[in-house]
């Protein structure tokens, strides 16, 4: 409950934040703090300095740009929940509880790449894009290149995730979540969407070290086959006291069936 000592400062613009990070490589960005602070309280993370980006106005809110929604990284789960985004509101409803949702941000969650987080499955299924700014300027990363491993995203030290671009129109979408009974994070979460062209895209989170596309499910559904079983190999999945790799693989099948039935 008591983090180690740290320095703290606030940034009021992206430019200022990037300058602070460039000047001090040890500084750690804090957004809603709902992943970072628990880790600090357990002293699993001991950053010497925090840079608070919560107050940066240009990182807040959701706007429409043609076929895309552009979501500021500091948009809270609560605001996502009340938005017109495809699929994300349903997913946001599954994140934590109202307190967590009022404070946690979409950018924080996706930059953090927690293997049991909910959003990554939705981002992969929808084909979201990530706008990242760093000392070298701005780059856009497709969802397929965002989640690199456990707690490892494409966002590099010194960079800031500024916006998430989400396709505005899909025909249908569904998210099915199997909650860990204690943490309520995803043991498995499966997102399935039918895009503007009627094609199925799907992804899962929770079961493995990072969220992944469910290519096998997409192939089967796009060629008119049933969902079936064996969508993922259990050998690639995580296991713990509550859910073995084999069980997780089975849950991916079950949740995929349920989500597919809704799109």
């Amino acid at each position, binding site marked *: *409950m*008591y983090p*180690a*000592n740290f320095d703290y400062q606030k940034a009021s613009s992206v430019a200022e934040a990037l300058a602070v990070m460039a000047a001090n490589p040890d500084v750690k960005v804090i957004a809603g703090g709902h992943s970072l602070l628990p880790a600090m309280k*357990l*002293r699993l993370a001991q950053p010497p300095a925090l840079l608070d980006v919560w107050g940066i106005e240009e990182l807040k809110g959701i706007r429409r740009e043609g076929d895309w929604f552009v979501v500021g990284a500091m948009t809270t789960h609560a605001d996502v929940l009340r938005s017109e985004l495809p699929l994300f509101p349903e997913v946001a409803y599954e994140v934590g509880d109202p307190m967590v949702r009022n404070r946690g941000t979409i950018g924080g969650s996706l930059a953090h790449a927690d293997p049991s987080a909910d959003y990554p499955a939705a981002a992969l299924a929808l084909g979201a894009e990530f706008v990242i700014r760093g000392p070298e300027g701005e780059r856009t990363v497709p969802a397929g290149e965002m989640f690199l491993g456990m707690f490892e995203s494409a966002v590099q030290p010194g960079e800031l995730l500024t916006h998430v671009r989400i396709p505005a129109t899909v025909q249908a979408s569904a998210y099915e979540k*199997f909650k*860990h*009974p*204690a*943490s309520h*994070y995803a043991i498995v979460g499966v997102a399935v969407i039918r895009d503007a062209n009627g094609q199925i895209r799907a992804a899962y989170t929770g079961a493995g070290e990072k969220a992944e596309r469910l290519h096998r499910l997409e192939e089967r559904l796009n060629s008119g086959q049933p969902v079936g*079983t064996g969508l993922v190999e259990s050998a690639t999945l995580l296991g713990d*006291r*509550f*859910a*073995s790799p084999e*069980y997780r693989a*089975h*849950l991916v*099948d*079950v949740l995929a069936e349920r989500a597919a039935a809704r799109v």
Partner: protein
Amino acid sequence: MTESRPDKYMGQALKRKEDPRFITGTGQYTDDFVLPGTLHAAMVRSPYAHARITNIDRSSVDGMPGVVAVLTGEDVQAAGIGPIPVGWLLPDLKVPAHHAVAQGEVNHVGDIVAVVVAETRAQAEDAAALLAVDYEALSSVALGSAALAEGAPQVHDDVPGNVAFQWEIGDEAALNEAFNRAHKTVKVQLRNHRLIPNAIEPRASLAQFSPASREYLLYTTSQNPHIHRLILAAFVMGIPEHKLRVISPDVGGGFGSKIFQYQEEVIVLLAAQKLGKPVKWTARRSESFVSDMQGRDHESVAELAVDDQGKMLGLRVNTVANLGAYLTLFAPAVPTYLYGTLLNGVYKFPAVHARVTGVVTNTVPVDAYRGAGRPEATYLIERTVDVMAHELGMDPAEFRRINFIQPDEFPYQTPVALVYDSGNYEPALDKALEMMHYQELRAEQERMKGTGKILGIGLISYLEACGLAPSALVGQLGAQAGQWESSLVRVHPTGKVELYTGSHSHGQGHETAFPQIAADELQIPIEDIDLIHGDTGRMPYGWGTYGSRSAAVGGSALKMALGKITAKAKKIAAHLLEASEEDVEHEGGVFRVKGAPSQSKTFFDVALMAHLAHNLPEGMEPGLEATAFYDPKNFVYPFGTHIAVVEIDTDTGVVRLRGYGCVDDCGPLINPLIAEGQVHGGIAQGAGQALWEEAAYDEDGNLLAGTFMEYAVPRADDLPHFQTDHTVTPSPHNPLGVKGIGEAGTIASTAAVANAVMDALWHECRIKHLDMPYTSEKVWRAIREARGGMGQAADD
């Protein structure tokens, strides 16, 4: 009756007087108290389950900001502070020394190795994290049965074979004879797994020492401040009792975990005395997981025998009780006198025999946890009874019904020592069956076959013994404590009243319920009455709150003290009315002369005159104050029937608790709202054990569920609406007729929910027994295996 107060406060569902302050955050808990100049203690806890401490390098924190002192086991020894004693002794009990700070050896993860005291909490935590300690790891053992195995690691040199005690109860020869006559027997291996109490308020202590008066003051999170004072003063610190004042202010839940004397309480007292400044410690939540005394942890074999009519002939029980690394306050009593004596349940058993082996392991100590022994007994009996009913092909309700002790058979001597003074089990069963539409549920269970969902209906009829008593008996059984309770009633000159009780609420609503009793006796508005508790400096001696004793024992003591007040008040009133005492009645809030109702005196008139003493009966002492000590003649025996309804998703193994109904008999209800609240919380907690909670350790004694990220407590949306009802069978021996209700929900619900899950699995695929908790993968695998092979579970 006067208009200002209802006819009767007893039985009214008054809202709790304490709730506004709790809800608005103005309650005063131990950690809220601030004394000037307070220093903060942080504990350095063992990361090993079993290790020798080879070196503690104090210089590793030298010069760190704010650090004032480092205390180790040597300092405790040098101060002449003794180990923390056990409060219940059994024959040949082996008691390993439990020091405030480890002396050379640690025996569980979380054991205290050293203490850092600093000016702020953060400074203390920083230094504690850096204090250099060298350990030599020793081999360790976590599971009770593993500790008994040949060649198992030895936890303590002075507890050979890790056996702290062996205990038995019942007539073994009679039981063997019953089994020889049996038509059918079943044998079930059951594990009642370990739990973490998880009170919302973590433990905390704040100590102050006054060099001038040599008095200590300790604010601490205690369910029983007088027990804390007695043990700390007389047995640990070696100081006169009256030199230590223990204040236990608002307490945010305990479930038993705040009964016991803890190491940290000794540490802050010693540190305050040595450093000359107040010292505070408040547990971090992760410390609570490895330092609050834990609950349950039995491995048992139960065997039940019946005749060809389905009548029970005998129950044989063999239990290994895991006590953890040290024996704490009531640890030896929980798996023996609070468990073995309850193994008769509500049935007419000709014979019961139980053998219990208490074992030490390298885990956090285990002691009383909500229900303490009775949930273990209820689970064992009721699970085994269901296994038998299933195998006999009898309806579990009918099987129970034909075996109940009948209402005309009380007082009933069981084969395991207790004498049940009253009971009437069938009406509670019938009411519960009706309330839950039991027959319709059974029909629905049939209809749901093949839908991918299975319905389970779990039924249990429990009995529990609470309000442990009488003192002479518990003394014979090994208790180093009395089990009476005290009450002081102080009437002020204005007729306002303070009640003092030695029991102490940690969530039970005493400040509302006790005044309800008093308002009826004194016939005054409840607003004029306050309850004072939780401070050894103010109350007469008392034994605290646990074992559902406060209403039955503390409430009875109050009733006796109130009787003394009204008797004296009546004398004064008669004197003032110039009538003889026999002609004065106490009715409608006034004392009046029979037949001359216009002549009356109010309670206020009497209270004022008692204090002015201008006109009192000849020879009467002034004042209006009385103390009573009540030592019950027997336990009280609440009972009831609980029914749980679960739905299992065969695709995932997820168990959903869909419905829950219960009929409890705790005698007359003082406050039905509070009683219902106790039942609700109890059901949630017991269901938590059956479905989610487990303090799992690995083989070496590492706690695998050390945070709320892994340890699953039930949340509101995991639970259904609870239907509650009561039957009323008063206790024949206490003046209020009341019985405890604080633990009944937990005692009953674990077994009810477990039986519901197993009822589903029996009906679906003839699975006889699985151990709790029924987590989804466990259930999914069991269904898959029972259906014979891979991949079938998702096919229906």
